[in-house]
């Protein structure tokens, strides 16, 4: 307990003090301001869109990574090993690196961005850029969790369902999604939460315009300089979201962890 407390204190005291400094009056007055509301709304919309895109694009990837042949070290393809490292990469990169990389790729001078630009599609400085930045930094959390969920379903069950005639999408829908549901849900919650908290990549790639690209973390950063109240109120909102999501993940993960043990 003695050795465990310093870090625990470091992790909790600043957050408690931050919430303690937020007065109810500040809460009411800030939450009625249009700029604060639009930051909250924008954050919720973009991170939900980012989660949607991650589920659509990340589920097939997680499923492929979880194929029995890719889970056994002996039979694992080199492609799967590389893909797994690539999926982990954004979680260890500083988000500012992600921002610069995205700007150089999807900005109007980047190889893909230039092509989109001639087609009349602009990404940088739009809410789409916010969503892409969020997918970049947050999707690995979903893919990793979904992959381990799919992998835990087991080869025998797959074979059994194949014999029963289930194949392709119906196999995924009727066997994998229900059985890996907890992992998918926990991964989705973590992904969404990380997307809500995205800051560095958004600032560089999407810029900062209230109502368009200024998400809650950006408003906290700028509010910190312009007047502490907005920063404090939005920080408390972000902490509230994080606590609810982490609590949900706990509830989702606990029984399955017990049954796996």
């Amino acid at each position, binding site marked *: *307990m*003695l050795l465990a*407390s*310093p870090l625990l*204190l470091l992790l909790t005291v600043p957050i408690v003090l931050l919430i303690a400094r937020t007065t109810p009056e500040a809460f009411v007055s800030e939450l009625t301001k249009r700029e604060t509301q639009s930051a909250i709304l924008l954050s919720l919309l973009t991170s939900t869109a980012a989660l949607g895109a991650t589920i659509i694009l990340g589920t097939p990837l997680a499923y492929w990574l979880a194929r029995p042949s890719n889970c056994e070290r002996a039979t694992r393809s080199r492609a799967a090993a590389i893909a797994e490292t690539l999926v982990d990469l954004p979680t260890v990169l500083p988000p500012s690196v992600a921002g610069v990389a995205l*700007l*150089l790729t999807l*900005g*109007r*001078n980047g190889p893909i961005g230039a092509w989109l630009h001639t087609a009349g599609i*602009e990404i*940088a*400085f739009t809410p789409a850029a916010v969503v892409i930045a969020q997918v970049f930094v947050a999707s690995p959390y979903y893919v990793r969790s979904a992959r381990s969920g799919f992998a835990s379903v087991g080869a025998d069950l797959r074979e059994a369902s194949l014999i029963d005639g289930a194949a392709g999408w119906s196999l995924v829908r009727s066997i994998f999604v229900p059985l890996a549901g907890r992992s998918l849900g926990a991964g989705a919650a973590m992904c969404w939460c990380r997307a809500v908290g995205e800051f560095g990549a958004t*600032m560089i790639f*999407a*810029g*900062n*315009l*209230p109502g*368009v*690209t200024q998400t809650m973390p950006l408003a906290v*950063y*700028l509010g*910190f*300089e*312009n007047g502490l109240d907005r920063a404090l109120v939005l920080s408390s909102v972000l902490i509230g979201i994080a606590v609810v999501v982490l609590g949900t993940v706990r509830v989702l993960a606990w029984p399955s962890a017990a049954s796996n043990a």
Partner: protein
Amino acid sequence: MARPRISRFRVDRLLAIVLACSAAVLGCESQRAPVGAARLHVLAAASLADVFREIGTAFEASHPGTTVDFSFGGSNQLRMQLEQGSPGDVYAAADALQMDTAVASGVVDASSVRVFAHNGLALIVPKENRAGITSLSDLARPGLKIVVAEQSVPVGNYTLKLLEHARTDPAFGADYANGVKANIVSYEQNVAAVVAKIALNEADAGFAYLSDAAGSNGSQLVVISVPAGLQQHTDYLAAVTTGTPREALAAQFVEYLAAHEAVSRLALRGFIVPKAPAGQQRRGGGAP
């Protein structure tokens, strides 16, 4: 009930030991740095980055054993860091407002404040200039992407003033400022971020400083001058922070900004240097 009390007591003791150790380490740090072998920490506005690095090297050469470290950022951001207790020996701001606020909050020594350079706003466009912008009046054209600095940053504040002045200027008209604002796609956190996005050709135009044309990104930019009637004359002010253990050296650095070596570098980098010796100059200039 006894157990928690004991463990709380031990936590207190552990914290006390940790604090005592860090105090001892910090104490050693300041004792270890005799005069002439000091590290000077300068917090300076982002627009000063290129020229201050050069001035810092020259200062080190003329003060053997001294190392100058810099933190560059928005003047407002640096001021807030000082107010929150961040270490720093010299503060150099890009406008009087930030310096006045720093004086008012007691983080810099009021008697040490010096104006050491001036600057002006410049419209910058990427070298390619695909939008074909040739003057300020083009900026209200719909569909452009304009980046400016956030209002709390000095350059962003100057930009806003320029647009407000344009409202009463018959050459631009009352709707001009609204048209320009509708084209703004991002409010950046400092002038360096504005310059970077223009240099990368990710936006069509932005407002930065005259000195940015002579900065490290200058070759990627085309600078379009601002009409004299709208130009904002900007001041750079430097001051010694209060409570710095290197007060004498910090004061020397502030004085050095008026020395020939520093002034010539400021002029080369496109800053406007004071005509009167800056050492005597207190406040002046300001927006017209």
